[in-house]
Protein backbone atom coordinates (compact mmCIF):
# COMPACT_ATOMS: atom_id res chain seq x y z
CA UNK A 1 0.00 0.00 0.00
CA UNK A 2 1.24 3.49 -0.77
CA UNK A 3 0.98 6.42 1.57
CA UNK A 4 -1.35 9.24 0.57
CA UNK A 5 0.41 12.13 -1.13
CA UNK A 6 1.55 15.02 1.05
CA UNK A 7 -1.34 17.43 0.49
CA UNK A 8 0.70 20.39 1.70
CA UNK A 9 3.27 19.93 -1.08
CA UNK A 10 0.81 18.68 -3.70
CA UNK A 11 -0.30 22.14 -4.82
CA UNK A 12 1.04 23.76 -8.00
CA UNK A 13 2.57 26.85 -6.37
CA UNK A 14 4.32 25.08 -3.50
CA UNK A 15 5.46 22.25 -5.77
CA UNK A 16 7.01 24.78 -8.19
CA UNK A 17 8.83 26.56 -5.36
CA UNK A 18 10.16 23.34 -3.84
CA UNK A 19 11.24 21.97 -7.26
CA UNK A 20 13.19 25.16 -8.01
CA UNK A 21 14.84 25.06 -4.58
CA UNK A 22 15.67 21.33 -4.72
CA UNK A 23 18.90 21.39 -6.77
CA UNK A 24 20.10 24.75 -5.40
CA UNK A 25 21.92 26.08 -2.40
CA UNK A 26 20.10 29.43 -2.50
CA UNK A 27 17.51 30.86 -4.91
CA UNK A 28 16.58 34.54 -5.04
CA UNK A 29 13.03 35.70 -4.49
CA UNK A 30 13.12 37.51 -7.86
CA UNK A 31 14.09 34.33 -9.73
CA UNK A 32 11.31 32.33 -8.04
CA UNK A 33 8.74 35.05 -8.78
CA UNK A 34 9.76 35.52 -12.43
CA UNK A 35 10.14 31.81 -13.21
CA UNK A 36 6.85 30.78 -11.63
CA UNK A 37 5.14 33.89 -13.02
CA UNK A 38 3.46 34.96 -9.81
CA UNK A 39 3.13 38.16 -7.81
CA UNK A 40 5.33 39.27 -4.92
CA UNK A 41 2.51 38.86 -2.42
CA UNK A 42 1.45 35.41 -3.66
CA UNK A 43 5.02 34.14 -3.53
CA UNK A 44 5.57 35.67 -0.08
CA UNK A 45 2.47 33.84 1.14
CA UNK A 46 3.72 30.50 -0.19
CA UNK A 47 7.21 31.02 1.20
CA UNK A 48 5.78 31.95 4.60
CA UNK A 49 3.67 28.78 4.62
CA UNK A 50 6.70 26.68 3.65
CA UNK A 51 8.84 28.43 6.26
CA UNK A 52 6.23 27.87 8.96
CA UNK A 53 6.15 24.19 8.03
CA UNK A 54 9.93 24.13 8.44
CA UNK A 55 10.50 23.23 4.77
CA UNK A 56 12.38 26.36 3.71
CA UNK A 57 14.60 29.02 5.23
CA UNK A 58 14.24 32.60 4.02
CA UNK A 59 17.16 35.01 4.25
CA UNK A 60 16.98 38.77 3.79
CA UNK A 61 20.30 40.06 2.50
CA UNK A 62 21.26 43.33 4.16
CA UNK A 63 23.96 44.15 1.59
CA UNK A 64 23.58 46.64 -1.25
CA UNK A 65 21.13 44.42 -3.24
CA UNK A 66 18.76 44.03 -0.25
CA UNK A 67 17.59 40.85 -1.95
CA UNK A 68 15.67 37.98 -0.38
CA UNK A 69 16.73 34.38 -0.95
CA UNK A 70 15.33 31.02 0.05
CA UNK A 71 16.65 27.52 0.45
CA UNK A 72 15.33 24.11 1.42
CA UNK A 73 15.96 22.96 4.99
CA UNK A 74 17.11 19.36 5.61
CA UNK A 75 13.59 18.63 6.87
CA UNK A 76 12.09 20.14 3.72
CA UNK A 77 14.40 18.06 1.55
CA UNK A 78 13.41 14.88 3.37
CA UNK A 79 9.70 15.71 3.00
CA UNK A 80 10.13 16.60 -0.67
CA UNK A 81 12.09 13.40 -1.39
CA UNK A 82 9.40 11.33 0.35
CA UNK A 83 6.72 13.14 -1.66
CA UNK A 84 8.57 12.40 -4.91
CA UNK A 85 8.96 8.74 -3.99
CA UNK A 86 5.21 8.50 -3.34
CA UNK A 87 4.50 10.31 -6.60
CA UNK A 88 6.69 7.93 -8.61
CA UNK A 89 5.11 4.94 -6.95
CA UNK A 90 1.65 6.25 -7.83
CA UNK A 91 2.63 6.79 -11.45
CA UNK A 92 4.25 3.35 -11.66
CA UNK A 93 1.10 1.74 -10.22
CA UNK A 94 -1.10 3.63 -12.65
CA UNK A 95 1.04 2.31 -15.49
CA UNK A 96 0.76 -1.19 -14.09
CA UNK A 97 4.51 -1.59 -13.83
CA UNK A 98 6.20 -3.32 -10.92
CA UNK A 99 7.30 -0.84 -8.29
CA UNK A 100 10.92 -0.96 -7.25
CA UNK A 101 11.95 -0.39 -3.65
CA UNK A 102 11.34 3.29 -2.76
CA UNK A 103 14.29 5.46 -3.67
CA UNK A 104 14.31 8.79 -1.87
CA UNK A 105 14.65 11.75 -4.22
CA UNK A 106 14.67 9.66 -7.39
CA UNK A 107 13.13 12.42 -9.50
CA UNK A 108 15.55 14.92 -8.09
CA UNK A 109 18.33 13.10 -9.94
CA UNK A 110 16.58 13.29 -13.28
CA UNK A 111 15.81 16.00 -15.73
CA UNK A 112 19.13 17.79 -15.25
Amino acid at each position, binding site marked *: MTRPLDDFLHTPARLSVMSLLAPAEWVTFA*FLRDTIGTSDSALSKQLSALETAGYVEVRKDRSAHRSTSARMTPGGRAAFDAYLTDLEELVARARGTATPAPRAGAASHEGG
Partner: protein
Amino acid sequence: MPELDPQGALTEVRRRRAQALDEGSAPWPRRFVAALVLACLTIGAARDADMNWLVPWMVILLGLASQLRGVRLPRTGRSRRWAVAWGAALIGAGWLGVVVMHLARTADWPLPGTIGGVVAALVVVFGVGPLQAREARSLRG
Protein backbone atom coordinates in the same frame (compact mmCIF):
# COMPACT_ATOMS: atom_id res chain seq x y z
CA MET B 1 -4.57 26.93 -10.23
CA PRO B 2 -5.04 23.70 -12.21
CA GLU B 3 -5.38 20.34 -10.46
CA LEU B 4 -2.21 18.27 -10.31
CA ASP B 5 -2.26 14.68 -11.48
CA PRO B 6 0.75 12.59 -10.35
CA GLN B 7 2.32 12.39 -13.83
CA GLY B 8 1.80 16.14 -14.35
CA ALA B 9 3.37 16.82 -10.95
CA LEU B 10 6.45 14.75 -11.82
CA THR B 11 6.78 16.54 -15.16
CA GLU B 12 6.49 19.88 -13.36
CA VAL B 13 9.21 18.86 -10.86
CA ARG B 14 11.61 17.93 -13.68
CA ARG B 15 10.84 21.10 -15.65
CA ARG B 16 11.39 23.39 -12.66
CA ARG B 17 14.54 21.53 -11.63
CA ALA B 18 15.95 21.99 -15.15
CA GLN B 19 15.13 25.72 -14.99
CA ALA B 20 17.03 26.08 -11.70
CA LEU B 21 20.01 24.14 -13.05
CA ASP B 22 20.07 26.23 -16.25
CA GLU B 23 20.06 29.47 -14.28
CA GLY B 24 22.66 28.30 -11.75
CA SER B 25 25.09 26.87 -14.29
CA ALA B 26 24.89 29.58 -16.96
CA PRO B 27 28.15 31.29 -17.87
CA TRP B 28 28.38 35.04 -17.34
CA PRO B 29 26.14 36.77 -19.87
CA ARG B 30 27.95 38.60 -22.69
CA ARG B 31 26.88 41.95 -21.31
CA PHE B 32 28.63 41.16 -18.02
CA VAL B 33 31.87 40.21 -19.84
CA ALA B 34 31.46 43.45 -21.82
CA ALA B 35 31.04 45.35 -18.53
CA LEU B 36 34.20 43.70 -17.18
CA VAL B 37 36.15 44.73 -20.32
CA LEU B 38 34.79 48.26 -20.04
CA ALA B 39 35.80 48.31 -16.36
CA CYS B 40 39.40 47.31 -17.25
CA LEU B 41 39.57 50.11 -19.83
CA THR B 42 37.95 52.62 -17.45
CA ILE B 43 40.32 51.72 -14.60
CA GLY B 44 43.30 52.16 -16.95
CA ALA B 45 41.97 55.45 -18.31
CA ALA B 46 41.12 56.63 -14.78
CA ARG B 47 44.77 56.23 -13.79
CA ASP B 48 45.84 58.25 -16.85
CA ALA B 49 43.34 60.95 -15.90
CA ASP B 50 44.49 60.95 -12.23
CA MET B 51 41.06 59.69 -11.16
CA ASN B 52 42.36 56.90 -8.95
CA TRP B 53 39.37 57.23 -6.63
CA LEU B 54 37.29 55.64 -9.42
CA VAL B 55 39.25 52.36 -9.25
CA PRO B 56 37.88 50.95 -5.94
CA TRP B 57 34.36 51.93 -6.95
CA MET B 58 34.68 49.97 -10.20
CA VAL B 59 35.97 46.93 -8.31
CA ILE B 60 33.08 47.11 -5.79
CA LEU B 61 30.47 47.47 -8.57
CA LEU B 62 31.93 44.50 -10.44
CA GLY B 63 31.92 42.41 -7.27
CA LEU B 64 28.24 43.20 -6.72
CA ALA B 65 27.31 42.57 -10.37
CA SER B 66 28.97 39.14 -10.30
CA GLN B 67 26.57 38.10 -7.50
CA LEU B 68 23.43 38.86 -9.50
CA ARG B 69 22.57 35.24 -10.31
CA GLY B 70 19.13 33.95 -9.37
CA VAL B 71 20.25 30.48 -8.35
CA ARG B 72 23.36 29.44 -6.46
CA LEU B 73 24.13 25.76 -6.97
CA PRO B 74 26.17 23.78 -4.45
CA ARG B 75 29.87 23.78 -5.30
CA THR B 76 31.61 20.59 -6.37
CA GLY B 77 35.31 19.73 -6.22
CA ARG B 78 35.66 20.41 -9.96
CA SER B 79 33.77 23.70 -9.84
CA ARG B 80 35.99 24.89 -6.96
CA ARG B 81 39.10 24.22 -9.04
CA TRP B 82 37.67 26.13 -12.02
CA ALA B 83 36.61 28.99 -9.72
CA VAL B 84 40.17 29.20 -8.39
CA ALA B 85 41.42 29.15 -12.01
CA TRP B 86 39.26 32.05 -13.18
CA GLY B 87 39.91 33.97 -9.96
CA ALA B 88 43.63 33.57 -10.54
CA ALA B 89 43.18 34.64 -14.18
CA LEU B 90 41.30 37.75 -13.01
CA ILE B 91 44.07 38.61 -10.55
CA GLY B 92 46.60 37.87 -13.33
CA ALA B 93 44.72 40.25 -15.64
CA GLY B 94 45.03 43.05 -13.08
CA TRP B 95 48.68 42.24 -12.38
CA LEU B 96 49.55 42.12 -16.09
CA GLY B 97 47.72 45.40 -16.64
CA VAL B 98 49.79 47.07 -13.92
CA VAL B 99 53.08 45.61 -15.27
CA VAL B 100 52.29 46.73 -18.83
CA MET B 101 51.30 50.18 -17.51
CA HIS B 102 54.66 50.55 -15.74
CA LEU B 103 56.54 49.33 -18.83
CA ALA B 104 54.63 51.78 -21.03
CA ARG B 105 55.32 54.58 -18.54
CA THR B 106 59.05 53.68 -18.48
CA ALA B 107 59.09 53.71 -22.28
CA ASP B 108 57.36 57.13 -22.22
CA TRP B 109 54.39 55.90 -24.25
CA PRO B 110 51.26 58.02 -24.14
CA LEU B 111 48.32 56.79 -21.99
CA PRO B 112 50.18 53.99 -20.19
CA GLY B 113 47.19 53.24 -17.92
CA THR B 114 44.89 52.77 -20.90
CA ILE B 115 47.40 50.45 -22.58
CA GLY B 116 47.55 48.39 -19.36
CA GLY B 117 43.75 48.37 -19.30
CA VAL B 118 43.60 47.03 -22.87
CA VAL B 119 45.97 44.18 -21.96
CA ALA B 120 43.89 43.33 -18.86
CA ALA B 121 40.72 43.41 -20.99
CA LEU B 122 42.26 40.93 -23.45
CA VAL B 123 43.08 38.55 -20.58
CA VAL B 124 39.47 38.86 -19.37
CA VAL B 125 38.04 38.03 -22.81
CA PHE B 126 40.38 35.16 -23.68
CA GLY B 127 41.19 33.83 -20.18
CA VAL B 128 38.73 34.72 -17.43
CA GLY B 129 35.53 34.37 -19.50
CA PRO B 130 36.24 30.85 -20.86
CA LEU B 131 37.46 29.63 -17.43
CA GLN B 132 34.32 30.96 -15.74
CA ALA B 133 32.19 29.19 -18.39
CA ARG B 134 34.01 25.92 -17.53
CA GLU B 135 33.29 26.49 -13.85
CA ALA B 136 29.60 27.13 -14.59
CA ARG B 137 29.34 23.92 -16.66
CA SER B 138 31.04 21.89 -13.92
CA LEU B 139 28.31 22.93 -11.43
CA ARG B 140 25.86 20.63 -13.22
CA GLY B 141 27.85 17.68 -11.86
